[in-house]
Structures are given as C-alpha cells and as structure tokens.
C-alpha cells in the first residue's frame, strides 16, 4: 500500500497526463454525442457572433470593392437574362417538361459568409442564417456562379458549411453537352481545381464542357454549375478529369441556400443493398 502511494506521488504528473489524454480521446470517440454536439454548436454560435462583429469592420472598409464585384455579377446576370429572353419563345413549348418542382427560387435564402477558415487545421465556412431562417442540415449552398458546399450543422442564427474544396465533400455531376456523369471531389492542392471520378472511357466528354450537379445527388438540386473541364486524361477504365471550379472561394461573401431536396425514398433505396447486387 505504501509502495502504491509513493508510486502515485512520484509519478503524479505522468498519471495526470494519462488521465487528461484519456478524457481527450473519450471526447474524440464521442464527438457525435448529443452533449458534445451541443457544446460544439454553442461554441460555433459564439465564434460566429464574434467573427461577425470583427468582420463587419473590414466589411465596411471593403464596400467599394464589394460594390464593384456585385456590379460585375449584375452585368453577367443581365447578359444571361437577355439571352434567356430571346430563347424564351422557343422554350415556352417545353416549359412543362423543364419545370422542376425541386427548384423553387423563391424559397432560396440569402446569407452572408461571416467566417471563413482555410488552413491546415480548419476548412469551413459559417453563414449568418440558422434554423430560425429555415436552414437545415444537408441543404445546398450556392452562388449565381455555382456550387459552394453543403450545410453540415445548424444553430439558431448560424450554419456551418462544408465547402466543395474539402476532402470529405463529394457530389454527383453531369456534363452539359455530352451528358457524361461522374463524382466530383477535391483531393487537396490548388483550391480552384477539383477532380471528377468514375467517368467511363467510353463517354464523349470534351474539354471546356460545363459540369453541373446531377439528379443523382442526394442533397443538391440539379443543374447547379460546378465548373468547366480543363483536363482529360485516359486511364484503364475511367478518365481522370480535372475541373476548374466556377466559384472563387477566396472572395466569397454572399451565398444562397437552396431548399432541402426531400427524397427520403431515394436515399432509402440507395442505401438498401440487401439483395447483394452492386448499386450504381
């Protein structure tokens, strides 16, 4: 007993270190637990609030630059509207087919990016819209230029967004001309280049084709631009495709959040593999 106490007294720093490390490892193991999630969300709410306050000063200082950028966006949108109006007459007959119930622009939520982290320790965005504004987990975040990411957690006033340029982010895409499909992901490196996997060697994908989100995606609405094909290299079965992303993540300040794509049956049937057959 005496030996035990003397051991405890002599090595108490090491024991303390082991206890602390064990608690830390326990927290890592239980990171999706309700208590830890609540703790994380309250921390995120506080961080976002502080960042918003701090960011508002630099926001005011950069208004001139922001105005110029918005003017450029307006010009681009105006040219798009003009070309669409010209095509509207031809399209009227096909309107019923093109009408998509999953896209309802009036339900989009406008939000401001209040926190942006792109470092070796964090890679995320925080927007100033939370569940009070109707934001839910897995909603698509986009800009008029293209896809930004998906909502990963929501608090009352803020939401955390996993950007497209995150190694865990994947989305089903399709090319606008050749209809080639694949899975878009970002594997590190340059922040404006992503890769499209599983594009069969038999497809007719060409350079400069625009990639948009496909209907196969379980979270994203279809037709959101993602980027343009800049490189195609053939492999044994599939092409290795590089896409230049449409969104400039370095100057992201305003985003839109699309309504949740409610397809529980599709998710259910996609995850059901009871037959043992491969599912694509």
């Amino acid at each position, binding site marked *: 007993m005496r030996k035990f106490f003397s051991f405890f007294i002599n090595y*108490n*720093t090491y024991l*303390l*270190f082991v206890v*602390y*490390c064990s*608690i*830390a*490892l*326990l*927290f*890592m*193991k*239980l*990171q999706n637990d309700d208590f*830890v999630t609540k*703790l*994380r969300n*309250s*921390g*995120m709410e*506080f*961080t976002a609030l*502080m*960042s918003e306050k*701090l960011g508002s000063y630099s926001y005011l200082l950069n208004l001139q630059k922001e105005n110029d950028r918005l003017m450029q966006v307006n010009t681009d949108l105006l040219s798009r509207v003009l070309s669409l109006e010209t095509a509207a007459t031809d399209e009227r007959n096909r309107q019923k087919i093109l009408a998509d119930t999953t896209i309802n622009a009036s339900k989009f939520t406008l939000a401001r990016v209040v926190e942006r*982290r*792109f*470092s*070796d*320790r*964090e*890679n*995320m965005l925080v927007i100033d819209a939370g569940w009070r504004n109707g934001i839910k987990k897995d909603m698509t975040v986009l800009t008029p230029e293209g896809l930004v990411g998906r909502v990963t957690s929501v608090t009352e006033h803020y939401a*955390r967004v996993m950007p497209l340029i*995150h*190694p865990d982010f994947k989305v089903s895409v399709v090319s606008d001309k050749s209809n080639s499909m694949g899975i878009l992901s*970002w*594997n*590190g*490196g340059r922040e404006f280049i992503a890769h499209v996997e599983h594009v069969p060697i038999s497809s007719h994908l060409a350079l400069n084709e625009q990639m948009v989100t496909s209907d196969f995606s379980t979270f994203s609405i279809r037709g959101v631009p993602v980027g343009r094909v800049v490189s195609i290299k053939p492999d044994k079965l599939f092409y290795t495709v590089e896409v230049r992303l449409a969104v400039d993540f370095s100057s992201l300040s305003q985003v839109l959040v699309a309504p949740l794509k409610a397809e529980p049956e599709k998710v259910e049937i996609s995850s059901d593999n009871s037959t043992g057959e491969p599912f694509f």
Partner: protein
Amino acid sequence: MLGIVPLVQEFGLSRLSLFGVSPDAITIYLAFIALIAGQRSSTSFGFASGIIIGILSGNIGLNMLVRTIEGFIAGYFHIPDSSHSTTKQKTRRIYGAVVMAGFCGNAVFAIGYNPLALSPLYRIAVLGVLESFLTLILAVILNWLFLRKSLAD
C-alpha cells in the same frame, strides 16, 4: 489569462496565416507556465486551454489532446526556483519549450485531422517547422515586450 489567450488565438492570431499556418500564442503561454510553475501546471493549463479552443473551433477532443501534450512537453523545460538561473537561461528555455511543444503539437494535430488533404509528411516536416518558427518569432516579440520583465523578477 487562461480565458483570454485562447480567445486572442482564435479571433486574432489564427487569422494571420502564412501558407495556411499561423503563430500560436497558447504554446507560448504553456511554455511560460511550464518554466515558472512546472510540468503538472503546464499539462493542466494545456488541457484547460484545449477545452476552450476546442469548443470555439469545433474540434474538442483533438484540441484537448494536442494542448495537453504541448503542456506536458513544455514541462520538461521547467527551471526550479532553487537553480538561480539567469534571465538569459530562462529565455532560452522558453524558446526551446515553444519550438518543441509547438512542433510536437502540430505533428499530433496533423495525424488527427487533415482538412486540406495535405500529405502528413509535408504537414509535419514543412508546415510544422514553419508554424514553430512563426510561434518562435512571436515568442521573441512577446519576450522583448513583456516576458523579460517577469523572468527577471
């Protein structure tokens, strides 16, 4: 100080990033605690600051682990009061603690979480060294401005 330093790190220094890494005030704080109060205190302070920074950044467990390890390693640079060391010797010890604790903490973080899909070797060898260097520069500045006086007492 325990409440202020993580806030300064999270809302101030983490925004001064160079190649995706930034200087770390918490490591300097732990090195200072280790020097004056010993390994047990620096380990406990590391654990506590890890909780705060973890809640703020959203990665609680890993931050707790990293900061505890940093505090523990910094503790090896403790100088007992009875040693009658000079200010220069204490300063050297702080710099040593900052570099060693910072580098090891960064290595553990690199193994635990990789949000930019960088090679672990690159993160540990290049970014780890760069972060330790930036933290050392900050430690030199802080020493010149504030710590020197405390260490001389």
